[in-house]
């Protein structure tokens, strides 16, 4: 049976969340922003999976089930994000988020 330390996984996802936060705060390109959000989202999904893997039998599978739903949400978010990228590019001529200073797209 495989045995692993839970703390290692927690440090990994904390690191991924830090990298994602850094990207969200510094990058001005919309696509890089989307990628940063995806990294943070993956850190959260990873949390669900390994807490599920280490938990008891009654709750363990729920972690994986939530992860499946979250992966679907993340894919949806990318689809909407890219639609916003295309609309922004057509209106402003670039995908710099600093130029998206109006609510109306």
């Amino acid at each position, binding site marked *: 049976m495989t045995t692993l330390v839970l703390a290692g996984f927690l440090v990994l996802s904390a690191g991924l969340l830090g990298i994602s936060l850094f990207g969200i705060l510094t990058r001005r390109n919309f696509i890089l922003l989307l990628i940063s959000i995806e990294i943070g989202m993956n850190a959260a999904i990873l949390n669900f999976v390994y807490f599920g893997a280490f938990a008891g039998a009654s709750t363990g599978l729920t972690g994986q089930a939530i992860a499946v739903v979250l992966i679907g949400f993340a894919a*949806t978010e990318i689809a909407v994000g890219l639609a916003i990228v295309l609309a922004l590019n057509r209106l402003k001529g670039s995908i710099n988020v600093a130029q998206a200073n109006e609510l109306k797209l």
Partner: protein
Amino acid sequence: MSLEEIAFLFLALIALVTAAAALLVRELVHTILWIAIFFVDLSAIYFLLDAPFLGVLQLGVYAGAVTVLLLFGIMVTRKRIFAREAATGIGATPMALALVTFIFLVSAVSEFGTSEQPIRYYDPSYLSTNLFQTNGPWLLLLGLIMLASVSGAIYLVREGRE
């Protein structure tokens, strides 16, 4: 140190390095390459955690669909896809904020114990039972949200909209 621990340390290191590299390289296409490696690496971590269904889903949805979608996003928004981004410096404040978040989260890790624990293996068929019976409403909600968001995305990019 067991073989699984070495594999985990190796995969975790790759995940952190590729995630950082994806945000630090200046060509967007290189970003997509790094992020593809990141997604494949995460899927390997899922296999390590005895969650093969999620590993395959991660490969299909993230490494496959999301990567290609992002690549399409780059291709339709610029004339030369290998153009470089303007350099954006590493600001002190965002770096500090990210570091503080990381340290805050790591300081809470000791709450969860640092002893080795067994990873439970679940048959993927039980996952489908859990997904469609116990968590059925969530899956239904996911379907509705996907429908709404795809309609919204089409509304945003449709032709002739002022």
